[in-house]
């Protein structure tokens, strides 16, 4: 290994790439996510030695190998647990968890629930392609009903989980959604997530070109996107459409959103600190527009901060002899 000393402030996106050949399928949405993360790292000026990418198993989980930071490719679903241990050992590290819909919401669903409710200071990026790619195309916990796959030849009869609704229900204090191909938006969301202290959860709608191609086309396709997406921004009205002609408001007498002309007086203004609004936005699905952006951001001290803030926490200098001689002792003389 050659030693190069670079001032991290000068690092370009390519400096965050490792020397390993990237081995995702040609056309995979993961390439775009890798590019966006490397760009975000450069724009944030992250120190490579202080940055750790942790992953479980799956296509998304190969991510750490392609970064020039520290990286730990672990076992299926367990990355949140391992990342929690890393943060407990060294809260100063900048730790990212790269996961997928199967890894993070099926085999690792329990760990995801608890890492979010504990609010460990991690950036959790969930690549949602609604399919198991690395195992060759089985339906996943986010696959819609009717998804045909090798394990559901007649179509899936299971109800999908919504990643963002799950995160909000788990008590996450930063929940965002973005799209692999919407680079500037994705980079912006990654930077927001990084700035958030505590667990940040980002769902990225990601295209699997081989096993589930175009599964989000009705949301992300260039032609349909303006009408199919509402890009949410804190303090701004919830409007969408090709010329922002449509808006969302609370339907009178119920607890659901409805589409009205953007000029309507009661079009909602996005408040990312409002959990109830975030839950309504997370639940939007076609024919209503899909909410993209930071749905919820309401920080509180992180878990590991509170661990170390507790009385006497991990000082490490206490007298061992005093401990061993605590409570009752007696002397035997010769």
């Amino acid at each position: 290994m050659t030693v190069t000393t670079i001032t991290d402030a000068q690092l370009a996106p390519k400096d965050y790439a490792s020397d390993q050949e990237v081995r995702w399928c040609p056309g995979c949405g993961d390439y775009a996510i890798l590019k966006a993360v490397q760009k975000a790292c450069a724009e944030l000026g992250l120190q490579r030695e202080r940055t750790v990418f942790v992953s479980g198993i799956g296509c998304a989980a190969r991510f750490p190998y392609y970064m020039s930071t520290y990286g730990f490719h672990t076992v299926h679903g367990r990355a949140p647990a391992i990342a929690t241990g890393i943060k407990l050992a060294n809260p100063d590290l900048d730790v990212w968890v790269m996961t997928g819909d199967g890894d993070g919401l099926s085999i690792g669903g329990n760990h995801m629930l608890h890492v979010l409710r504990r609010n460990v200071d991690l950036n959790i990026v969930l690549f949602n392609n609604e399919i198991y790619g690395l195992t060759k195309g089985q339906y996943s916990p986010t696959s819609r009903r009717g998804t045909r796959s090798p394990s559901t030849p007649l179509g899936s009869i299971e109800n999908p989980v919504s990643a963002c609704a799950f995160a909000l229900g788990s008590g996450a204090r930063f929940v965002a959604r973005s799209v692999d191909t919407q680079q500037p938006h994705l980079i912006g969301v990654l930077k927001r997530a990084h700035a958030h202290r505590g667990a940040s959860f980002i769902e990225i709608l990601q295209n699997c070109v081989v096993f589930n191609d175009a599964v989000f086309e009705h949301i992300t396709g260039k032609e349909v996107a303006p009408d199919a997406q509402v890009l949410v921004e804190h303090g701004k009205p919830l409007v969408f459409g090709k010329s922002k002609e449509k808006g969302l408001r609370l339907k009178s007498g119920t607890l659901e959103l409805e589409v009205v002309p953007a000029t309507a007086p009661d079009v909602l203004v996005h408040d990312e600190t409002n959990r109830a609004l975030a839950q309504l936005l997370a639940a939007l699905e076609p024919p209503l527009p899909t909410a993209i952006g930071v749905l919820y951001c309401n920080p509180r001290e992180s878990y590991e901060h509170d661990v170390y803030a507790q009385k006497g926490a991990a000082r490490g200098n206490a007298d061992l002899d005093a401990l061993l001689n605590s409570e009752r002792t007696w002397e035997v003389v010769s």
Partner: protein
Amino acid sequence: MATSSIVSPQRESRDSVVIRFAGDSGDGMQVTGAQFTLETALAGSDFSTFPDFPAEIRAPTGTTFGVSAFQIHFGGTDVMTPGDAVDVLVAMNPAALTVELNDLRVGGTVIVDTAAFNERNLNKAGYTRNPLEDDSLARYQVLKFDITKLTADAVKPHGLSSREAHLCRNMWALGLLLWMYGYERAATVDWLKRKFAKKPVIADANITALNAGHAFGETAEMTEHMVGYVVPKAEARPGRYRTVSGTEGLAWGLVAGMRAAGIEKMVFAGYPITPASALLHTLANLRAYGVVTFQAEDEIAASGAALGAAYAGALGVTSSSGPGIALKTEMLGLAIATELPLIVIDSQRAGPSTGMPTKAEQSDLFQAVHGRNADAPLAVLAPTSTADCFDIAIEAVRIATKYMTPVIVLSDGYLAHAAEPWLIPKEADLPQFPVSYRTDPEGFHPFLRDPETLARPWVKPGTPNLEHRIGGLERDYDSGHISYDPDNHARMTKARADKIAGIARDIPLQTVALGADHGKLAVVGWGSTFGAIHQAVKIAQDEGRDVAHIHVRYLSPFPRNLGDLLKRYDRVLVPEMNNGQLVKLLRAEYLVDAEGFSKVTGKPFRVTDIVQRIRGGAPPPRETSGLGGEAG
């Protein structure tokens, strides 16, 4: 009671005595036993204890399956086990009497609370007639006291409710037993004041009950059958002593090991499980020693967090019991593949699946040594006593950090709760084995091996210019990059095996605990059976038999001379609290014709079990006192 002689009109002398306190799980028998132990220790006697309690926290009162017992063996010489036969049984109700009576020696003393022997309790215990009123206890000395009323009368001035007064019965019984053996009450009084600091009335009432029980023995109210005893002080090496449980030994040993290695922080991650939780509780109070405890969402996450902490440069420790260790298997594989130090403490318990959570067994040896997918070697150690728990924890830290490997420590439910006297070590006298984290980028790759230990470097994330990626995928021997090359996989498999095998060069040679290093019979044990085997071999030697005791602390890898040593005996007998696991490992490894000797009742070996086996080779009669009674 080996010998007895009259030393004074009041007190007879005994070499050693076994007492069992038994009652409902709500009767406070465990604290009664613990306080008796403390007073014994302060009086200078040697002791060994065995808490035996049901899995139910509060089983229905008066039932046989709700019986909780605490046994203590104490005296001047040869106290190495909690004792085979009980000399004095304190039975707080009929259920305790029926469950525990089988272990009382003929001629032994049973102390009962007559008030508890009412029709309702007798029915619950399965008695059709009151055993206190027929001749069914004729083989024993029965001391019948209305402990309920005596306690209630004593604490009356404190104005307690009848239920609160009833809860003081155990202290009355403790006071009586302390009088019987001439022990002090001061430490118990102190303990009561601390325990009930916020409820001084309760503290005072308990102290009154304690004193009343003591006074009862002292005064003319005692029966003609009841006498006091003196038990000699033990001969022990000079120094400062305390009692230590296996749990305390492990917790403090881990802290000592962390310091010896020069590691700043321990992350201990666990998930509640009997009987391992006590270790989590103990370490949760040691924040000032650099310990961070984490109660994870499950066993898998606990092992994951511990491994993540190890990756980040801390001492990563996880702990559980058999079924929980099974869940950690996958993470152990990752620790082996990524060659990170990880300490796993297994407090073994009986049976597959949930089994018998509060009963001890040694049946996770196969799981520890071989229980993983693929060729996945690691180091396995087992403490021989509660005091050895401290030393074994230090050794586990040394091996894990020096060889960059997971280490499993096989404790058990008996060691976790049992207590013994312990010569307190001084930190300055403990071993030192500082770790060095790699910081030099020159020539670095993550799987560059130390030529001597074959260990890879330990790098803390945060170290400049050593950024690297590791994971569960097979990696190239020469670069650490992902590799699917067939020859490389063979080379890495061998490297992982050679690294663990090489630990044998760095651990003590196997010694003989008692007897000659050759001869007719070697009795080979491991773990918490040390005391019973040792005592049995001593008795057999006194009978003129050519027999030795070998106790194996290092189970993977074995000490490098173990095979040669075993071959110097005509016969090898392996008593184990499992259905034959070490015996199979020894046979497989060394082709010795070792014989197994199993005990799987959930209770520790009795010395006589092993003596009989040494004498005749015939299996001992089936236990009658074990499971049947407790299962109700």
